């Protein structure tokens, strides 16, 4: 499924229960022209900027990293992390390519520090 198809499918699903998810209203809320959003959904234009994808993700209740990946983009914060140690992270990601989800989740899980 392409980025545009995914957006359209999820937006239409939300619209079936709430009219605020029409192309026009969603476009307004994320700050683009309705015609542009329509073109994105049809795949007539390339996916929008990272900022607009993040706005779309928030609007549609989707994970921004998932939408960015579908759009062929890597979020700026991840790019910064990789740029600091490119070889190490390239090796790491390649090594983890075939690891099962539960193993990946265990690595991704750290103890959160809060406010105290």
């Amino acid at each position, binding site marked *: 499924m392409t980025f545009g198809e995914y957006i359209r499918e999820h937006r239409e699903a939300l619209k079936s229960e709430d009219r605020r998810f029409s192309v026009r209203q969603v476009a307004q809320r994320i700050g683009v022209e309705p015609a542009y959003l329509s073109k994105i959904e049809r795949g007539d234009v390339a996916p929008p900027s990272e900022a607009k994808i993040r706005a779309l993700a928030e609007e549609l209740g989707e994970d921004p990293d998932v939408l960015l990946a579908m759009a062929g983009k890597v979020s700026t914060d991840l790019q910064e992390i990789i740029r600091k140690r490119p070889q190490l992270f390239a090796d790491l990601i390649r090594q983890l390519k075939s690891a099962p989800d539960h193993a990946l989740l265990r690595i991704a899980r750290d103890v959160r520090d*809060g406010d105290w």
Partner: protein
Amino acid sequence: MIELMNNQLTFRFPEVHKKAVCSIDFQRTLRIPDDNREYPLPPGLGRFPVEHVDDFADKLPDTWRTHGGVFIPMYQSEALWINFSGDYPCAVKIAAGKINAVSGEPWNNGLSADPQDYAVIPEQPWLDGFNVSEDFIRQFVAMPLGEGFTAEEQITGKAEHGGLQIIVYPMKHDVYVEHFERTVEADMDYLDMPMFSRTVCESAAPDMGLAPGGLMRQEIYEDEYGIDAWDQDNGFRCFIHLANSEQYLAITGHQPPHTPPTAKDYTSAGLPWFDYYSDSKALVGSDTLGKLTSVAAKVIEKGKGLLPDNEPVHPKTVKIISKGNVVRDGEF
């Protein structure tokens, strides 16, 4: 980052050095008699279960969610000790109710050299309590917050934080290379560490806090590297909440561990206590912590009779352990 696996917190600092790893777990133990006699080290009876706060966020107090971190179940009057492991030198600062357990000072994130308010691992293999005088600590004993027993309440007059707080700083890369790199042979590329083969992590209110219990012979060692050896730009910290064991079951659906044996039962069974020897120089005790009233004395002060299961014991089997042989497992 801090990982929780096998009921152990592992602090990794790959940005500092690939070997910069230290692990901390919380050992169940018996409560030594709180009678102002001096006792040797009690055994470790296995790790306390440790849970992510975020896994049970909807059942925990708002303040716990704000603090983040983890929680462990403890019975009232149960004792614990903190077990350190790892070869890469790290400075570890520990507080109970945000009162530093080494210096008695209120919590802050940084390290202090005068007075030294942290322990250095691996020189310090464990910490069993509050640093009340040179060569002696008062055992960490869990008590409900709000009843005036905890070190926090005795020092600040408030029952605000409870729990345990830990921050770990690794040795600076350059200092490590200078001291160890040419002599340490072990090749431990952290990417090759058995991240996938480890066993799966096993899986409140009112809060509990730690109060000073019985007197134990234990030294907290002076930092032989000096405060500048520690990379204070790369620390990780963790709030360890203490959940009353009865509420732990309601929160997690998991049974808490059984209550530990009493010191009397353990000793009567002929099981070993421990003494640790090191030639490192010990810190002096904290005046503030030295003035704390122990749990048993507080019980009497409050007119509540005597602390139960507090009869003196006379350990007959005391195993001597030293650096390189720091296992103090008990069997019961």
